[in-house]
């Protein structure tokens, strides 16, 4: 049984888990190809115009999987991944959005991941989902394996920033959803380009949950989106440690319109250079690269003059 997993959205966070969980249930896992212009074009044509870029790309990935003749699509309903918090409403209805945008889809496997009452309910929903395919002992083993793979993946990310070269000329914090940062097509390889330019990067993924939680107390109100909480916590944690912060957001992203704005205000008040790159399907590479270059120049000069230059123009 071929199960397709679209390479988009929470693929970048949960794929190690999903892969070994689905394999443990006896499925063959097929991933869609990395994003190309074609993926994006299909997504843009098939979805409604006001939806955000990552969802459009996701629709394109689903189409790619359909062309690969998968038997099932794995698209979970994700309501919440942490206790008392939500993620973007679009994830709550993602399979319904896909069905709305693409007429003929293979059957969609969609367990409902609702962690509002704690991690145990997430476990139950995966186990209940797995019981449709295999016996309980096998499902449990698959689930444990999945979690183990996820832990390994997360541990690798946490140690990543230490391994980068110590002589980096600039240390930059990069904020944004993992599905933007890790997709080289939509982010136009910004992380790669920064590394090539000799910068040391710390992204949201490189920080562990405790650091994030400890750095959220500066907010006037508890942030109830998990992704927003991560970005704000990372901004607060990184601000005193880095030379500058770059935020990536996609146009029409609901949660980021709030969180990145708060980040921007925070950086401005504390005189930290901040560059906001807003991505959509029309973004031209040249303009973005010029802005990146200019920003790096600014940081470099600011460093040489020992912070006498202002952070904003």
């Amino acid at each position, binding site marked *: 049984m071929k199960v397709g997993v679209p390479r988009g959205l929470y693929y970048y966070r949960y794929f190690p888990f999903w892969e070994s969980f689905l394999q443990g249930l006896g499925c063959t896992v097929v991933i869609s190809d990395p994003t190309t212009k074609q993926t994006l074009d299909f997504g843009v044509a098939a979805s409604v115009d006001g939806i955000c870029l990552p969802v459009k790309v996701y629709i394109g990935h689903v189409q790619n999987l359909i062309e690969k003749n998968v038997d099932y699509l794995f698209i979970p309903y994700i309501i919440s991944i942490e206790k008392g918090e939500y993620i*973007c409403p679009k994830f709550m209805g993602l399979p319904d959005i896909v069905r709305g945008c693409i007429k003929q889809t293979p059957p969609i496997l969609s367990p409902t991941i609702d962690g509002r009452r704690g991690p145990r309910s997430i476990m139950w929903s995966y186990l209940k989902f797995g019981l449709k395919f295999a016996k309980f002992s096998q499902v449990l083993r698959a689930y444990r394996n999945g979690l183990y793979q996820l832990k390994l993946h997360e541990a690798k990310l946490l140690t990543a920033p230490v391994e980068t070269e110590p002589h980096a000329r600039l240390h930059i914090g990069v904020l944004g959803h993992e599905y933007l940062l890790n997709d080289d097509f939509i982010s136009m390889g910004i992380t790669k380009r920064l590394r090539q330019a000799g910068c040391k990067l710390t992204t949201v993924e490189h920080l562990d949950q405790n650091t994030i939680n400890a750095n959220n107390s500066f907010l*006037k109100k508890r942030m109830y989106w998990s992704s927003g909480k991560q970005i704000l916590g990372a901004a607060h944690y990184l601000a005193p440690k880095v030379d500058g912060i770059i935020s990536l957001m996609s146009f029409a992203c609901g949660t980021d319109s709030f969180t990145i*704005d708060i980040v921007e205000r925070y950086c401005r008040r504390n005189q930290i250079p901040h560059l906001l790159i807003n991505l959509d399907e029309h973004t031209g590479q040249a303009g973005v690269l010029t802005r990146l270059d200019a920003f790096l120049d600014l940081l470099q000069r600011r460093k040489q003059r020992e912070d006498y230059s202002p952070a904003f123009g």
Partner: protein
Amino acid sequence: MKITVPHLGNVYIAVEALLNEMGHELVLPPQSSRRSLTLGTKYSPETVCLPLKLGVGNILEGIELGADTVLMVGGRGPCRLGYYAALEEEILFDLGKKVEFIVLDHPKEDFRRLRSQLLPLIRKKGWRALIRGLVLAWEKLMAVEKLERTSHYVRPRESEYRITSQLLAEALQRLRSAATVAEIRSVCRQGCEAMLAEAVKVDYQPLRIGIVGEIYTILDSFSNLDLEERLGHLGAEVYRTVSLVEWLKDHVIRSSLGLYSNKHLIDKAQGYLHASVGGHGLESVARTVILAEEQYDGIIHILPFTCMPEIVAQCILPNVSLDYQIPVLSLVVDEHTGEAGFQTRLEAFVDLLARRSEGEWAYGTPISLSRS
């Protein structure tokens, strides 16, 4: 303490009654206008939804009139409304405005802050005044909705162009000054009767159009460019599926008693949307199904640009439209919405419905105008 509140349609009438009864001065910002929208757009983040921009504009205009306290509602997700107050606080802080925020948040969020902010408000005239105020506000809210509902019925049948809107505005003004429950009820009754007397085209069978979508853009006539009035003048009877009274009953009263369940909506949206996606997303889909079953002629789905829950509904509604053979028009509004384009689309939509109801035009392809 001079309190100001952002506008939401005609809800200010109820808020005013409540605060006056509690002995506080309400500095009412002028009705939302191009100016409030421009102010709000200038100081809000670029891609937030329209209600926040208008709210910021209202608050700034309220501050210009001398307000020093802002009363706002809160929430706990996943819709952005829950974070509005916090972001507005940041925006005003950066603008150097010294105002205090009183946020009516969910008690589970920060009970201490809520209590420390509300108790001084209540102590001024005591708990009895609060209850009296709540009763008055509730009555006024119900009266406002009843008057508006009546105007939806009368407008396509009115004797003289715009007479209904005039009578409605007069009745609302009188409602503002009504001070007792009996007075409110009599103003409401008189207002309704005055409007109904103008409904002269008794034989006329208007098109019936249901309005679904995001609550702010449905209730606030500035943000939806007087959608209901325009449709009424085009000869259609409008049914508004969203009501603030019902929302408060469901989400404040029933859900705090643990009695609220959205199961009936989930059942209706079966096969399209599996559960609530925050805001009115589920309701938009479920109500469209319900209205289609009730043989409505068409549905207008209205949402602010980038609204998260409604975008999910917008993706799904073309399928509902096709399955139930009911035309659905999704209208996205933001600060760039132009009046002429809006009117043209409404006229075209009403024409289409009229031809369909006469049987001239069979239904083949989906009426999803956003997609080919």
